[in-house]
């Protein structure tokens, strides 16, 4: 079992040798922020999205399991005719997903809100105009970043049904591989907005979407206002109360059991530390009706750990969980979250963890 980790200071791959025994097998991009990783199960390629700050966002691909990388063109907006300060430029490559069964078909969600598509393994990219030109995009806004961004893209195996989560811009669904889109946030609300905007689909802030592989009608959403569940593939949403706090960033669905999911609660919403500074994972096993705080082995106090959106992953076959924090700790659970083994506490802030699905 192999786990890919993207941090503020580089990439590392860890291999499992036994319970609690994960060893660093490889590193790359030391010193560079790695905002996203995609170990592509279709052809074994490993994509790495970098944010070089001064030098912009970059995309790299490895065809030898991460031993060497070559540079690909990063998704970019077309140059507008009139030069201006407002014309868009990609700030962050935030999510990378296979776009369907064809190897080389990819979706890339970005800040400031563009969804890009490649059909040739990232050698060229095209902005999805259908989503970018939605009139309600004018009301999208940034949450935590100056501009809005697409952090979650869920793709059904055939590639036709695509769901994009936007902070802050709602949940968008396409039934035709991205040719057209509709926003679906019925049931979601944002109590921190003016009353007139509370249920406006275009301002909803889903922090992260995760669905059950075995039943993709069941989708979990960690939202800025709280936690929501959909039973109809993302069309309507039900608010759930998750103790000790419904606020957080990460959410993971059990790949085989639509009743089971995990979140990592934080004090809402400008404070953002573990409740009572005790780090726990919230787990439901009954579809979100009830939740328990689990996490034997996690810090029982004095924790300031935040798990970012892409900092929690589940192995698709083994239901092993990986979780990594802004404080540089990486944890693994092999019993559905009941207990956690600390792999290392010495990483830079972690942006993403992703199991190899090959």
């Amino acid at each position: 079992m192999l786990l890919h980790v993207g941090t503020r200071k580089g990439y590392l791959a860890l291999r499992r040798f036994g319970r609690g025994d994960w060893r660093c097998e490889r590193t790359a991009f030391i010193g560079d922020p790695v905002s996203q990783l995609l170990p592509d199960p279709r052809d074994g390629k490993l994509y790495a999205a970098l944010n070089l700050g001064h030098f912009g966002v970059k995309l790299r691909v490895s065809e030898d399991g991460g031993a060497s990388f070559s540079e690909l063109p990063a998704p970019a907006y077309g140059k507008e005719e009139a030069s201006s300060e407002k014309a868009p430029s990609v700030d962050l490559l935030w999510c990378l997903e296979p776009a369907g069964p064809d190897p080389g078909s990819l979706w890339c969600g970005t800040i400031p809100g563009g969804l890009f598509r490649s059909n040739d393994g990232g050698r060229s990219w095209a902005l999805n105009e259908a989503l970018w030109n939605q009139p309600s995009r004018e009301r999208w806004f940034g949450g935590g970043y100056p501009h809005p961004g697409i952090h979650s893209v869920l793709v059904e195996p055939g590639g036709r049904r695509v769901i994009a989560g936007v902070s802050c811009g709602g949940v968008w669904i396409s039934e035709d591989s991205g040719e057209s889109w509709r926003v679906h946030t019925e049931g979601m609300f944002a109590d921190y907005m003016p009353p007139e905007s509370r249920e406006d689909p275009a301002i909803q802030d889903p922090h992260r979407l995760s669905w059950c592989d075995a039943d993709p009608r069941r989708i979990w959403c960690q939202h800025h206002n709280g936690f929501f569940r959909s039973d109809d593939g993302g069309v309507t949403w039900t608010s759930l109360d998750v103790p000790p706090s419904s606020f957080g960033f990460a959410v993971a669905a059990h790949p085989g059991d639509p009743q089971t999911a995990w979140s990592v609660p934080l004090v809402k919403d400008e404070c953002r530390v573990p409740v009572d500074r005790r780090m726990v994972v919230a787990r439901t096993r009954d579809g979100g009706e009830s939740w328990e705080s689990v996490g034997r082995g996690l810090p029982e106090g004095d924790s300031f750990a935040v798990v970012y959106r892409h900092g929690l992953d589940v192995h698709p076959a083994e239901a092993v969980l990986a979780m990594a924090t802004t404080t540089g700790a990486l944890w693994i659970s092999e019993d559905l979250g009941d207990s956690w083994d600390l792999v290392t506490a010495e990483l830079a802030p972690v942006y993403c963890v992703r199991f190899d699905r090959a």
Partner: protein
Amino acid sequence: MSEALSRVFRDNPGLRSYVLDDQGRLRTHIVIYVDGRPVRDRIALADPVGEGAEIHVMQALSGG
């Protein structure tokens, strides 16, 4: 300035996105000096560059 950079990027296309953003603007933390003076037009890169001018492309250092 724009023309001078284009000549450099023609020989080294990969360099372009490191210096300019998607819209061809100078990246925020990049600065270009022409004969010791910073360019003023960071959007259209229209500052004049004389024959034999010396151009430095530099980046700020920050982070931790």
